[in-house]
């Protein structure tokens, strides 16, 4: 065998490529984004003849004539055009035997790239069940590359591919082995000789396929950054196209048709389809699952079950994590000498780490279910059923599951948008997802509704409080839909890539892949988003703890809580309240008071808006501290009472009324007040641009809506 340093794994989506990748590399994998883009890069290592070899799992693609970013990266890496990834010395193309024609299409393109190619033919078992017999030896002869049958279900089968590479010298397939015909060959040569050779800095082996791209796809021409060069290329390509048309050929279709002719020729002698095919189970299931009326109902039922399970399963783990970090904090607080370092570790680092790990149960359970839905093939059906509804509001059939996840928490929801292949659709879904009323908003809603919305009955058991609560959820959904429609306007229709979605045959999910996926998502969150969350936690701790002010002697009840008898408020609580008010966060709360006054908020809420950036529910804790509410006991009740009794000193009016409460809830429904969301959006979009835009427009919208609610309400 030849010396290998990098192997690329190529294949259509849904072929079990990641299963093969896992089998080849085990757990020795690195997942990151390709630089500057949102396409995930998976790299691992395997051993071939005792040597360590790098394996790069390229994004799944149907074609090397790319229409989307992830396909473009797959193509550029293979062609040796991509700056941040070394060109592979060998490509393993994974082919789904039950879907041979379309999979071979990609294989014939990879064969044009001038690197050694090995084809791994998987799912022969599925094909056989459908009465398709494939003679892999014959097909290998026809194609001119080694074809190794493997059963994707069986991990040991990956070894067969490695063994073949160890034992044989893998040859580079012949140039344009698929017989393009003389007219197309002439066109390729014309473009190569008159433009590519002199104008492009790419390996010679990629010249043919580059010429074919230019010939059939105007987007490939438009991508040339230098306008003058683009112009000269267009002239050359036009001439080649005219020549082809004179020969009676359609320049945009000829390549595809020729490749399929070649594939049909290859398979005609090596593939036999038995006449009595057993009834296709997938069709039977689909009749029911994608039915006009039953389909949406089944989907809703699956979603409901899924979220109920996530809710009830994740909660004990979240409580355990919460408790563990509190205990750890207490232990450190008592063990280390008192002082700033102690505070930093306990309230900054440990609390911050706890704030990261607390998300893991929900993320991992959600991805457990998503992996199963994807693995069985149901996810594509759900998208099929929902697409009609979702496109009408500017989203995609695949947006539904991430959006619904957003009701539990935006973090796993945003991570789940990865199942949307198209970048534009994925981005719009990410941008509107935080409007879904996540569980962290509940404590704030609960406090405000209990304190300020009268518990009057509307009809029977339906109360005004209940309607307000429900209304806030609907409000979030409506704002998400409106925002999606607006954001959609910023994308030109040109950027809309086709939605041609495969509905893969149903199969049992591979549990090893499910486990792998759950582990990967957890790791990605902790390692990449966790760092940002921890850093912001420490910053927020600093803002709320500094400067270190002297506590004045004889500190009595803090502002606003004067009506309560001193016995219920301990000295420590008063000190904490005093310190917070005079901290940077407190000063900032005072500073922004004029800005938030038109919304009905005072400086105390101002402080809460700052500290709740750690997580929305922190608002309640901050108000507890400001109002010097005891940590233990019936805090909710006493905080509620203190809020109701708080009097504005200058006006003599209560600080809070029903409009303040509504305004605050509207603000919480819309504002981007969650650093963990910011961190995960940064990770999933691979830039600070989108989290910055998200923060600005959501918070701006929140300000506007709260302003309207309060001002209109007060003038009534």
């Amino acid at each position: 065998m030849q010396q290998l340093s990098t192997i690329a794994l190529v294949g259509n989506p849904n072929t079990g490529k990641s299963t093969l990748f896992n089998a080849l590399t085990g757990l020795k994998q690195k997942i990151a984004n390709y630089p500057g883009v949102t396409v995930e890069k998976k790299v691992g290592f395997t051993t071939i003849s005792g040597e360590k070899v790098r394996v790069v799992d390229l994004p799944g693609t149907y074609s090397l004539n790319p229409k989307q970013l992830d396909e473009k990266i797959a193509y550029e890496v293979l062609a040796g055009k991509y700056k941040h990834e070394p060109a592979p010395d060998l490509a393993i193309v994974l082919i789904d035997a039950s879907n041979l024609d379309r999979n071979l299409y990609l294989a014939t393109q990879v064969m044009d790239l001038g690197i050694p190619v090995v084809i791994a033919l998987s799912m022969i078992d599925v094909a056989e069940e459908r009465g398709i017999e494939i003679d892999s030896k014959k097909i290998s002869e026809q194609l001119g590359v080694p074809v190794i049958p493997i059963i994707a279900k069986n991990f040991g089968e990956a070894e067969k591919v490695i063994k073949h590479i160890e034992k044989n010298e893998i040859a580079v397939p012949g140039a344009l082995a698929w017989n393009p015909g003389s007219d197309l060959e002439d066109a390729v040569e014309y473009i190569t000789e008159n433009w590519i050779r002199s104008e492009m800095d790419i390996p010679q082996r990629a010249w043919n396929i580059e010429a074919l791209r230019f010939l059939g796809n105007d987007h490939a021409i438009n991508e040339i950054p230098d306008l003058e060069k683009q112009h000269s290329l267009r002239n050359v390509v036009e001439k080649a196209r005219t020549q082809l048309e004179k020969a009676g050929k359609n320049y945009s279709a000829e390549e595809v048709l020729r490749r399929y002719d070649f594939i049909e020729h290859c398979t005609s002698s090596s593939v036999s389809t038995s006449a009595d095919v057993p009834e296709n189970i997938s069709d039977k299931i689909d009749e029911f699952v994608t039915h006009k009326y039953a389909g949406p109902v089944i989907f809703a039922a699956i979603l409901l079950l899924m979220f109920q399970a996530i809710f009830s399963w994740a909660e004990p783990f979240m409580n355990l994590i919460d408790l563990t970090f509190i205990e750890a904090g207490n232990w450190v607080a008592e063990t280390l000498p008192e002082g700033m370092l102690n505070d930093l570790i306990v309230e900054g680092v440990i609390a911050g780490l706890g704030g990261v790990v607390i998300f893991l149960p929900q993320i991992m359970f959600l991805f457990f279910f998503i992996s199963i839905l994807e693995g069985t093939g149901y996810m594509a059906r759900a998208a099929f059923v929902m697409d009609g509804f979702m496109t009408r509001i500017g989203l995609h059939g695949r947006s539904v599951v991430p959006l619904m996840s957003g009701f539990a928490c935006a973090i796993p929801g945003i991570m789940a948008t990865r199942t949307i292949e198209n970048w534009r659709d994925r981005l719009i879904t990410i941008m509107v997802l935080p409007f879904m009323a996540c569980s962290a908003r509940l404590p704030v809603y609960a406090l405000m509704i209990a304190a300020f919305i009268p518990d009057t009955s509307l009809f029977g058991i339906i109360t005004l409080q209940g309607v307000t609560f429900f209304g806030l959820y609907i409000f979030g959904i409506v704002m998400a839909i409106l925002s999606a429609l607006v954001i959609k306007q910023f994308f030109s229709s040109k950027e809309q890539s086709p939605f041609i979605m495969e509905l893969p045959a149903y199969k049992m999910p591979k549990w090893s892949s499910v486990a792998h996926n759950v582990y990967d998502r957890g790791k990605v969150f902790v390692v990449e988003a966790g760092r940002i969350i921890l850093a912001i936690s420490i910053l927020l701790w600093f803002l709320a703890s500094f400067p270190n002010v002297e506590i004045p002697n004889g500190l009595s009840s803090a502002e606003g809580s004067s009506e309560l008898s001193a016995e219920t408020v301990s000295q420590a609580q008063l000190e904490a309240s005093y310190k917070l008010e005079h901290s940077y966060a407190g000063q900032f709360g005072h500073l922004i008071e004029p800005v938030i006054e038109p919304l009905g908020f005072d400086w105390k809420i101002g402080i809460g808006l700052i500290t709740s950036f750690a997580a929305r529910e922190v608002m309640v804790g901050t108000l507890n501290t400001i109002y010097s509410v005891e940590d233990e006991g019936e805090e909710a009740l006493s905080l509620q009472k203190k809020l109701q009794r708080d009097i504005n000193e200058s006006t003599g009016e209560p600080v809070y009324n029903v409009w303040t409460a509504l305004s605050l809830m509207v603000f919480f429904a819309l504002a981007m007040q969650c650093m963990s969301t910011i961190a995960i959006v940064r990770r999933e979009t691979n830039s600070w641009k989108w989290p910055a835009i998200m923060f600005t427009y959501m918070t701006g919208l929140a300000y506007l809506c709260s302003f309207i609610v309060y001002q209109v309400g007060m003038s009534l």
Partner: protein
Amino acid sequence: MKKLSEFEKTGTVKVINVKGDKALRILEMGITPGVMLNVMRAAPLGFPIEVKIRGYALSLRESEAECIEIESGV
């Protein structure tokens, strides 16, 4: 010429031509002139539709079905 988007039934049709700005991807997926295409069902609200081609199932939106010219009753 009849378009696939106008074929409001289920059943087998023959692909005659693929045109328009989305033609390349549709062709690449194996919907090439001459092949038989089986319309399986439509999603709620009429689109997308599920079709079978070359032994696998594919979902097409209305805008994509518009690019495909067909001959029915074959």
